[in-house]
């Protein structure tokens, strides 16, 4: 049954076989023609078709219509313009995607520009500051500068010194805890503008273990909080409060003076 169908299809293809070889683009047609190429019947058919086609070529075409088939282009392609190209949906979609990607890239780049060794930890600690309540800390009412001894004596934390800019402020409480990387963090709550101070180990070079220093004060921001960070003797200090840079600046500039 299948063979019969195949034979019928081959016969049908041969009836439609082109008489010029350059049109044998179809595989099934090529196969049918190659099988029948030498048969008398097929040769007769091709000669017949070629003769008819040659005569068809001689059928006169009215002069007015023949003009259309001159060498010149029938239709001049529409002019390419920037405006047209910009409104092309594909170009528009790609442009929007590129702008969004560029925006994200610039945003990331600007964020990275303010990065410094320990900025990642400082950001995490800003989140800690935002979620800390005074009851979570041990109540200590003293000057912030004096807590260095407490950290050293009680917790064995060396160089956890509060910089002179913040040393004179009265404290409400303090605590020492480990972060998720088991680093010892000291947190101090001040009465001054409900400011919080953090002391934590500075980042180190992964290969050499050397402390990654950075000069002066660096600001970081997160969710309405601002932190001013500095590094001394391998320990980072951060003063954090809710607000902007201008709220912290007076304390830093005061020390510079």
């Amino acid at each position: 049954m299948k063979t019969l169908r195949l034979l019928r299809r081959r016969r049908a293809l041969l009836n439609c076989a082109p008489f010029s070889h350059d049109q044998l683009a179809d595989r099934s047609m090529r196969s049918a023609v190659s099988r029948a190429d030498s048969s008398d019947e097929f040769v007769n058919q091709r000669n017949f078709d070629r003769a008819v086609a040659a005569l068809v070529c001689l059928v006169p075409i009215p002069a007015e219509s023949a003009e259309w088939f001159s060498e010149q282009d029938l239709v001049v392609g529409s002019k390419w313009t920037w405006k047209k190209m910009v409104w092309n949906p594909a170009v528009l979609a790609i442009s929007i995607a590129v702008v969004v990607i560029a925006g994200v890239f610039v945003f990331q780049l600007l964020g990275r520009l303010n990065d410094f060794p320990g900025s990642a930890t400082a950001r995490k600690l800003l989140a800690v500051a935002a979620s800390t309540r005074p009851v979570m800390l041990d109540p200590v009412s003293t000057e912030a500068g004096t807590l260095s001894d407490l950290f050293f004596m009680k917790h064995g934390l060396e160089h956890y010194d509060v910089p002179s800019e913040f040393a004179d402020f009265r404290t409400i409480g303090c605590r020492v805890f480990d972060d998720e990387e088991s680093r010892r963090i000291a947190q101090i709550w001040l009465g001054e503008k409900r400011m919080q101070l953090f002391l934590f180990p500075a980042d180190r070079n992964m290969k050499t273990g050397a402390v990654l220093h950075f000069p002066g004060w660096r600001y970081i921001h997160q969710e309405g909080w601002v932190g001013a960070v500095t590094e001394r003797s391998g320990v980072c200090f951060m003063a954090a409060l809710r607000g902007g840079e201008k709220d912290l600046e007076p304390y830093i500039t005061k020390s510079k003076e």
Partner: protein
Amino acid sequence: MLGDSRKAQEVFHTTLREAAQRAAQGELPKEPFWLFRDARWRCLEATKTDIQPESREIDEHEVDPGAASQIEQLDPAQLAVWISSAPDPQRTALALFYLDEFDYTEILDIAELKLSALSRCLAKGRRQLQAWLDAKHPEQPKL
């Protein structure tokens, strides 16, 4: 397709004019060969009101090895009239096939035919044309 140069010219210009209008309105169809399909329908429309040939059995002869020489004696206009007088879809099949511009898949697309139907039209057309040639220019008996 029409066997009448005046009508053919009219259809040709109408088809192109409509195509230009559609292009100007940005409504050109996406599928290939729509222009040829359009032209074909216009040709069929143009001949709808013409006097139709009587529907009777036309003689059919198997294609002769010496048919080429018989065809050479034909006038091109006569052949055009013969093809145009064939009933559709045979007329479309013969016209498109002997134009030698399209392969068979393209003809199937333009004429909206199946392979078996196109094959039948062409085979029948050849046999009928051979019979007509035999009647018009009988082959010289070989000595």
